[in-house]
Structure formats: structure tokens, C-alpha cells
């Protein structure tokens, strides 16, 4: 029995909990990407750096709070700073739209032009963030680090295996659920939400229905700013803040958004978890788990690993390919421009 529990805990600790947390992080990022795709109809390459920018804003405000002696009990101070950072990020995004994207929207440019334009924005944001906060690692989490730490868990249960759940992991998962619920409700049930979908569908007709396109765009960017800031901050809290990593996050984020069906919020969430779990499970060696479960004589010598971690990226992309081949527009029917 304890062996079975040990196996279960090991699997939970190294596969399920990290998979959930990473999945939620990807999902939050993918939500932003998918929203821009769904409503403004382009793949926003600047999203990774927008997340970095949002996280940076949070960090600066957190530092200010810490300097003032404000804290948030067991939770990270950064959570308190979030609303302010969201405001700043949203303002920056609105400014960017005004200066950059609006022109191409009015021109009715090809989406691919907007993709390249967003790369330009990405370069600029990239420069600004590095200029303002530098390129190094920054840790800004405070408060309780763990909900359960591996050591406490072992002490409490007497098991050989530990189970750790970090506060940030908990917050990330909870936030992801709340955010997607709100977003889903907003887009499908509110007038503004529906008008946003209408705008993305047929801009001219939206105009004829009295929908104000500028307002739709504005609301979109504000939501995206909020999503990016939340995603960037939660990610930074969980790992650490380093601008370059946000650029690298872009790839799995897009993969998540696409596998779930571009433009579909629910898809972004599911996609995030699929990518995360693909990376974690396929490369997880079952040696230890089997060691607990099987009688001594049958214990495996090798790692019992399907594929080495070297190929973890490859694995997630293979899964992505398989999903797309079976459902060519993602799991939840996405759009394509």
C-alpha cells in the first residue's frame, strides 16, 4: 500500500503538479495570443515581450511597495502590484496600437504584414525591457514559498516520496481557471464581448451595426495587457524573471494556442495543458514508479523512459502534429485567416 502511495506521490510530484503549473502558465500566455488572433486577426509575436514588460512593471511596483514596507501576508507582494502593472501595460499597448497597428488596420493590410510589424514591436519592447531592468535574473517573490513542501509532506505522511506544491503554482492554476471563466463569459455572454467577436468576423458589417471599432480594439488590448501582465508575473514568480526567457516562451505559447484551436479561449487552456503534459510525461522515466509497484525481482534496470528529455520539444511538436492531422483546426475548432 505504501509502495502504491509512494508511486502515486512520485508521479504527482514530478509529473502532475509541474505539468499543471506549467500548463496553466502556457495557457495564460496562449489566451492573450489567441485573443489577439481571434479579434485583431494576426499572430502577435510581441506577446512574449509584452509579458516581460508586464512582469517588469510588476517588479518595479513590488520593489516600491517593499520599500514602503507593504506586504501581502503569505502571498507574494507582487499580487498587490498586479493591478497597477496591468494599467501601465495596457496603456503601453494602447499607445502601441495607436502608433503602430492602427495604420495597418485602416489599410486593411494582409495579416502577415501585421505579423511582421508585430516582430518590429517585439524588437522594440525587447530593447526597452532590457534597457530598463537589465538582462539578468531577478527574483521578486516573497511571502510563503510553499503550500506544501516536500520535506513537510514526508514528515507528515511518513512516505519516502515528497510532494511539493508551491504557492505560485497554486496561484497560477487558480488564476488560470478564474481568468478563462471570466473571459469565456465575457466573450460569449456580454454585449461588448459579442461585439468583439462580430468585429473580428466582419469589420464592415460591424460598422453597419453601429459597433465602434476603436472601442473594440481598445477593449481587446486592455484585456490582452491584463492577460500578459498576469501571465508574465506569475511565470516570473514561479521561476525567476529574465527577459530572454519570455522570448523563448513564445514558441510553446503559440503551440498551445494552435493545438487548442486559434482564436478559441477554451482551446488555449486545453492546448497549454497538452503541450505541458506532453513535455513532462513522455520523457518521464518510470523506473522509480515501477520500482515501487513491481515486486523486487521485476524491478527495471533501465530508466524505462519512452524518449530522452533531449527530445522533449520534439515530442511536444509531434503531439501537436498528430492533433492537427486528426483535427486540422485544433481541438476546439479554431479560425484561420
Amino acid at each position, binding site marked *: 500500500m505504501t509502495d502504491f502511495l509512494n508511486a502515486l506521490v512520485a508521479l504527482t510530484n514530478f509529473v502532475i503538479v509541474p505539468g499543471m503549473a506549467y500548463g496553466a502558465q502556457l495557457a495564460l500566455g496562449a489566451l492573450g495570443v489567441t485573443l489577439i488572433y481571434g479579434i485583431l486577426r494576426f499572430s502577435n509575436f510581441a506577446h512574449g515581450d509584452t509579458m516581460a514588460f508586464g512582469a517588469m512593471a510588476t517588479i518595479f511596483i513590488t520593489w516600491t511597495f517593499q520599500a514602503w514596507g507593504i506586504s501581502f501576508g503569505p502571498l507574494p507582494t507582487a499580487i498587490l502590484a498586479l493591478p497597477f502593472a496591468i494599467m501601465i501595460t495596457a496603456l503601453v499597448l494602447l499607445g502601441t496600437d495607436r502608433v503602430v497597428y492602427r495604420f495597418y488596420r485602416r489599410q486593411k493590410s494582409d495579416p502577415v*504584414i501585421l505579423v511582421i510589424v508585430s516582430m518590429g514591436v517585439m524588437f522594440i519592447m525587447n530593447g526597452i525591457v532590457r534597457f530598463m531592468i537589465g538582462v539578468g535574473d531577478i527574483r521578486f517573490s516573497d511571502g510563503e514559498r510553499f503550500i506544501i513542501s516536500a520535506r513537510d509532506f514526508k514528515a507528515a505522511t511518513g512516505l519516502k516520496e515528497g510532494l511539493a506544491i508551491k504557492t505560485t503554482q497554486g496561484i497560477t492554476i487558480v488564476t488560470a481557471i478564474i481568468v478563462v471563466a471570466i473571459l469565456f463569459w465575457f466573450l460569449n455572454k456580454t454585449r461588448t464581448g459579442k461585439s468583439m467577436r462580430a468585429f473580428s468576423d466582419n469589420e464592415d458589417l460591424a460598422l453597419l451595426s453601429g459597433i465602434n471599432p476603436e472601442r473594440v480594439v481598445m477593449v481587446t488590448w486592455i484585456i490582452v495587457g491584463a492577460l500578459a501582465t498576469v501571465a508574465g508575473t506569475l511565470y516570473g514568480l514561479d521561476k525567476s524573471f529574465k527577459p530572454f526567457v519570455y522570448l523563448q516562451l513564445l514558441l510553446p505559447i503559440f503551440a498551445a494556442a494552435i493545438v487548442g484551436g486559434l482564436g478559441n479561449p477554451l482551446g488555449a487552456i486545453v492546448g497549454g495543458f497538452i503541450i505541458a503534459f506532453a513535455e513532462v510525461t513522455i520523457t518521464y522515466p518510470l523506473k522509480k514508479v515501477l520500482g515501487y509497484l513491481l515486486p523486487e525481482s521485476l524491478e527495471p534496470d533501465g530508466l524505462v523512459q519512452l524518449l530522452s528529455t533531449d527530445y522533449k520539444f520534439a515530442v511536444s511538436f509531434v503531439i501537436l502534429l498528430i492533433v492537427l492531422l486528426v483535427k486540422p483546426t485544433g481541438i476546439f475548432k479554431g479560425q484561420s485567416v
Partner: protein
Amino acid sequence: MTESLRTPLLFALVAVLIIGTGIFQDWNVALLLLNYGLISAIMALGVNLQWGFAGLFNVGVMGFVALGGLAAVLISMPPVTEAWAEGGARTIGGLLIGAGAIVATIFAQRKFQGRLKLWGTIAVALIGFFLFRAVFDGGVAAVEAVNPAGTGYLGGLNFGGENYKEWGFMALVAWPVGGLIAAGAAWVIGKVALGLRSDYLAIATLGIAEIIIAIMKHEDWLARGVKNVNGLPRPVPYELELQESATFVERANALGFDAVYASNLFTKLLYTGYFAVVLLILLWLAQKALNSPWGRMMRAIRDNEVAAEAMGKDVTARHLQIFVLGSAICGVAGAMMTTLDGQLTPGTYQPLRFTFLIWVMVIVGGSGNNFGAILGGFLIWWLWVQVEPMGLALMNFITAGMPEGSALKEHLLDSAAHMRLFTMGVILLLVLRFSPRGLIPER
């Protein structure tokens, strides 16, 4: 500005940029820029073929470029005889078994019926997989054990022996082979993924490119993985040889050049010649194709696949054709680039540099227009390299008035390197602002 004047003027601008680099910096820098610019232009041409002609959103350029690079190693490096002796046969045998297993699996899937279909197929696949691993792993281990710090791989097909470096022409052979390997991969990928629409195809190709790179990084027996292969033979003489050759020194001096300087210029010029020939041939082919009924058919397919299909055009086959062609061009460019670098470094293949930068070239230049893509290739490459000193100069200018040693000044100067991407972004936005359809738009 009229359309017909615009193209030559823009190319003249690029010429001015490169010549200006020669005058204000150095001719070596200018020629180097030109050489990489030629390669970039070829890659842009390949992507333009796929996107501009057929609307295929291939974001896996990096993978094909890397395969081209792999060809440069597999063709122009000498075989590692010891590695072949130790595990060559077993490795190749393993690969053949692997290929056989795939064929058998497909066969089983087609031929088995009923309940046998699923389980039989899985069984065949599993047996094949284990057989493959059993043979292959041992071979790989043997090959990689041969002097891992220096070789540890099978090597290539250059049979020049000790003097393999003198067989520089093997590098030239590697270029078309790079195209072929890329084309082969593109064919397989196209068969699988071309049914996908726009952005879904994009992420699929992006993923496949990552998989290709992952393989190149981890399969040391193939091309040393992340340990890199250095010192590839090249189709031009070595500068040092020239510097030691009395006739060359004499001629250089007669022309008023220092021998070292002249040798550098000379080798670069030779590369320029090779690359320019390749580019011109490909441009000629692309132009002819674009302006023929074939090009018209492709544009129709890009415009509306459903209608094109109803008008009797085999959209799938045409997509596959152009996907293979465009990828092959990227493969050729990749092989050329690896030859020019003199080494294969799988770690350098990053999507930002080898996929998205190429896309920027195509879009800024003007997609659907071969001249646009080529112009974009030169221009963006020039900027990519030259924004660095530009950013630095900008920062120096800004900080010129500040007191020595002030914290702000330090900070600004330290950030100068990041102004590189920043400047790139600003220029990109400015260009696209003033010609949103690219510098030389499609007709």
C-alpha cells in the same frame, strides 16, 4: 515615383549601402556583408516562392537551412574510417531496419483487416522499433566512442584523404546535395502537413524544424551534434596560402595592396562570384516560372483554393511541388552558408535568425515579387549587421554631453548592445509604415 523606376532605385540604394560600407568601414566588411546578403537573398527567394507564389505559410525555413548545412558536412568532410570500421555498418544497418520498420508499419496498416488492423499495426511498429534500437544503439555507441573530442562521427564523402581540404570542389558538390536533402525532407513533410491551413501549417512546420534541429543536436554520430564540425573544406583558396604564394604577393603589391589585405579581398570576391551565379540562376528560373501559366495557376491557387480545385487544378500536388522547390532553395542556401562559415554549428539554428528574419526580408522586400524578396534579403541583412554600430553610435551620441562616470551614462552605454534589436525594430516599422506592401510590391 513610378513603379519601373522604383526597383532600380532601390537596388541602387542597396549598392550604395554596401559601397558606403566599403568606403567608410572597410571593403572586407562590405564584401562579407555582400556574401551573406547573397545567401540571404537566396533564402528569401525560396520563402517567396512558397509564400508569395502559393500562399504556403512555411515557418520551418530554419530546418531546411540546417539540412543544407548538414549536407555540407556529409559531402565535403572526409569519412572517419575508424568510426566506419567500429560501428558504421551497424549504424547504417540500424537505419535501414528503421526505414524498413516504417514501411512495414504502413504496409500492415494498409493490408491488415478487422481487429488485426489496429493491434497488428501496433505490434509491427513496436517490433520494428525495438529491432531498430537494438541494432542502431550499439552502432551509434561504437561510432561515438571513436575519439569523441575530435571526431566521434561517421564523417562525410570526401575521399581526398589527408588532403581533403584541397578537394574544395566537394563544397560545391555539397550545395546542390543540400538542396536535394532539403527537398527530400520537404516532400515527406509536405505529404504529412500540407493539408493544414495557414497558421496551422505554420506551427507544424515550425515544430518540424525544431525536430530537425533536435536531431542534429543529439545525434552525434551524424555530425557531432552540439560539438560542431569545424574546418570544412572550401571552394576558394585559403588566405594563408595566398599570403605565402610569391606570385600572389607580387601581383597584390603591383596593384598597390598589402598581401594580407588582398588575400582577404580575393577569397571573398571568389565567394561573391559563386553565390552571385547561384542567385542569378535561381532568379532567372523563378522569374520565368512566375510569368508563365504555371505562375498564373499558382496565384489562382493562392487566391482561392476551392475555386482552383474546381477549375481542375490539383491543389495538393501543386502545393507539394512548390513546397519542395522552395525548401530545396533554402537547403542550397543553407549549404552555401555552412561552407562560408567553415563549420556546422547546430546550436546556431534559432528560429529568430533563420526563420523569422528571412520572413522579414520577404515581407519588407515585397512578397510575391522576386526582386522584392531579393532586395529585402540584402537590405535586411545589411541592417541586421549594421544596426549594431548604429545603436552604439546612437548611444555615444546621446551620452556625449553627460559627465564622465555618471551612472546614467554607464547604464546607457551598457545597454548599447540592446539598441541593436531596438533599432532593427524601429527601422522595420518605419519601412513598413511607408510601404506597407513591401518596398517592391507585387505588380
